[in-house]
């Protein structure tokens, strides 16, 4: 079909805040340390779900829920929501200047999660089978079984009243959330969006990876959440917020084919090309790549082939999965967080970085991210 009216260069999205919770711990410094060391310290066995399969796991060591979120209002929330609430709490706490109450009316939420908390929905479903009567379920756990619970709770806890989206994009969930955020900001539905992705490690998810044989040997099933404050340039300027990174483009493609694997690297290459073009930069400007499928059987080679077809093998790789495990819906957000964390340690020498992702469902995605001029400032709030 002709008549494609895609604008060549899109408005960049300013990342002015970041909260991250991962197997490395809480915050960008912990993440940078772990990526630098090539591994995260294993938490105590109590951090792992009971009934998990005999495969490597990578859990968030200590969520410090009460410290970050207060004592009340969290007892009946699930881990997906808690991970995201802590990440949002960190993202907002680190925002300089802080987000004033009136601005929260035009602030939105876009959270990537492939299936919500599969633990919550399957446990709720289980109750209908094991209780004396099928309706003897816990009423206040019902909202947890619905996928938008996490995004809605972020809004409730933080008084954020704008668009509130939950994006189920599988491996691409985090990229889908950033793409969604860019669109609603561009179209005037919001001035800024808390955008990111979350994944919870549960017995259910670990067994799913194990039984579906999705991971390369040695890859841990992970969890985590990264949430970014993404604003229009105008909103960031007006507030006078320093920028941690600029998301220049966020492109997604589907293979549309019967055998998605077959065309996945081609789809990703097309995606990267288009993303670079719409960012107004070329393949030679790419200095770093943070790939997504580094732990997934079959996908890793396809992803690398797709990226190399466009930018060659020269850019450095920032690989998150060997350190944090396979974090699925949170993957893209943790990849971006890893880049930002790295830039705070070693100010980058210009250029751009790519965050890429490919999924078994036949989708491919690419972010083009520019480091801030003069390096990222260290201004994460410490406790």
């Amino acid at each position, binding site marked *: 079909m002709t008549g494609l009216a895609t604008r060549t260069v899109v408005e960049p999205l300013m990342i002015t805040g970041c909260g991250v919770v991962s197997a490395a711990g809480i915050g960008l410094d912990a993440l940078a340390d772990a990526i630098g060391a090539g591994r995260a310290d294993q938490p105590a066995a109590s951090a792992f779900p009971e009934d998990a399969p005999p495969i490597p796991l990578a859990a968030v060591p200590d969520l410090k829920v009460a410290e970050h979120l207060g004592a009340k209002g969290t007892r009946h929330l699930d881990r997906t929501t808690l991970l995201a609430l802590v990440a949002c709490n960190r993202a907002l706490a680190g925002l300089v200047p802080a987000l004033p109450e009136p601005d929260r009316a035009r602030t*939105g939420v876009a959270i990537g999660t492939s299936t919500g908390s599969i633990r919550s929905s399957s446990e*709720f479903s289980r109750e209908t089978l094991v209780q004396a009567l099928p309706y003897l379920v816990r009423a206040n756990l019902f909202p947890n*079984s619905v996928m*938008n619970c996490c995004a*809605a709770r972020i809004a409730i806890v933080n008084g954020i009243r704008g668009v509130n989206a939950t994006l189920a994009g599988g491996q691409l969930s985090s990229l889908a959330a950033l793409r969604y955020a860019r669109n609603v900001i561009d179209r005037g539905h919001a001035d800024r969006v808390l955008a990111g992705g979350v994944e919870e490690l549960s017995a259910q998810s670990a067994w799913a990876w194990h039984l*579906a044989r999705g991971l390369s040997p040695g890859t841990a099933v992970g969890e985590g959440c990264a949430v970014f404050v993404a604003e229009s340039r105008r909103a960031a300027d007006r507030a006078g917020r320093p920028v941690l990174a600029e998301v220049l483009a966020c492109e997604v493609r589907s293979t549309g084919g019967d055998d998605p694997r077959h065309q996945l690297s081609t789809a990703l290459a097309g995606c990267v090309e288009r993303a670079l073009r719409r960012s107004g930069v070329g393949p030679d400007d790419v200095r770093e790549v943070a790939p997504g499928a580094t732990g997934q059987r079959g996908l890793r080679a396809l992803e690398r082939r797709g990226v190399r077809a466009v930018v060659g093998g020269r850019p450095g790789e920032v690989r998150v999965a060997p350190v944090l495990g396979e974090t699925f819906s949170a993957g893209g957000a943790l990849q971006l967080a890893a880049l930002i964390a790295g830039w705070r340690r070693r100010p980058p020498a210009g250029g751009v970085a790519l965050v890429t992702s490919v999924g*078994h469902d036949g*989708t491919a995605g690419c972010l083009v991210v520019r480091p801030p001029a003069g390096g990222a400032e260290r201004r994460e709030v410490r406790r």
Partner: protein
Amino acid sequence: MAEPTGRRVVVTGLGAVSSLGIGAPAFTAGIRAGRSGVSRIRGFDTTGFPHTVAGEVHDFAPRRLLRRLDPDEWGRSSLFAAGAARLAVADAGVRPAELSAGNAGSAIGTTSGESAVIERLTAQWVEGGFKELDPALVRQVPANRIAAAVNRELGLTGDAQTIATACSASNYALGYAYDMVRTGEADLMIGGGADSVNRWAHAGFYRLGALAEQVCRPFDVDRTGILTAEGGVALLLEEHDHAIARGARVYAEVLGYGVNCDALHPVAPDPGRIAECIRAAHRNAGVGPDDIDYICAHGTGTPTNDATEIQAVREVFGDRIPPISSIKSMIGHTMGAASGFGALACCMALYEGFLPPTATLAEVDPRLGDGVDCVPGRARAARPRIAQNHGFAFGGNNAIVILRRMS
């Protein structure tokens, strides 16, 4: 080339996999007649449930409808979505080659994703532990597969975006699809929703005291709650000039949408925030309250929702409330597909000239105040020009789409 932000977006194809029938004509005929799609539940064992009816889809034959997907590899919600999308494309008369060669994608809303698959796995877990889970079923769980199924079935190469904002998800999806076409990110988008009837939602709504026993009676003085339901719905959104150039039938134009969040409570809706959402939708669509001729209500049939919704509408429209009806009176609450079915009903109402009824309404709740016309019984002949389609959800996720008649 037109200014990208000025591209107009129209609906040229409609697809429904519903309890009232397969295909938009069957669905519309049911709506116009005020027919009920509610029946005794077959999707799960209802032993022990005091309430045992739902709006299930019984005559869906994915093998007949789908050309590329193997139904054995996909969950029920994915098949609903792909089936509805296949119907919408056929209805629009778009050639398959045009779809796969062009810049086309999908945005599909859902509340519980592949809930029927999750429930089968849960039963395996209860019986034999996690190690007994069927890997083939495990692979069907992720909700992203719903939009992926649409892209795979139609050969679409653009966005495959499953949006999981619970019961307003279809309107969220339609809003996103609208923006993609309007800005030139895509030339064609499938927008819609899909969900499957499941035991856990039935139990949850029963436990909340929000489940009707036999009949869902939105706005009625004797309303007692929702009926759970399922289905898949798809609208083909296309750039206006492209549609005209190929001589397409245009059901309606999408004028815009509004989205916001109560940010107050997980299950109790807030009239003030819903009113703000209506105003945001009007601003985005460039219309005012006086322009709206019909409201397709969220209208779940719970005492709280319907009272809150009318209160919000009154806040915006004053005492001149447009006719407002709920198709949930016929098909029940199809969850993530609900506002998609609402949008389809609006398109047909604008195109054919009628107001969809609140079929089960016997007596309007006097506590809703004066001047509330819920179009009781059967469809009413009318010539609405602009329709407003509501979708609200758990978590206070509000989304409203505005549609206009083409003429």
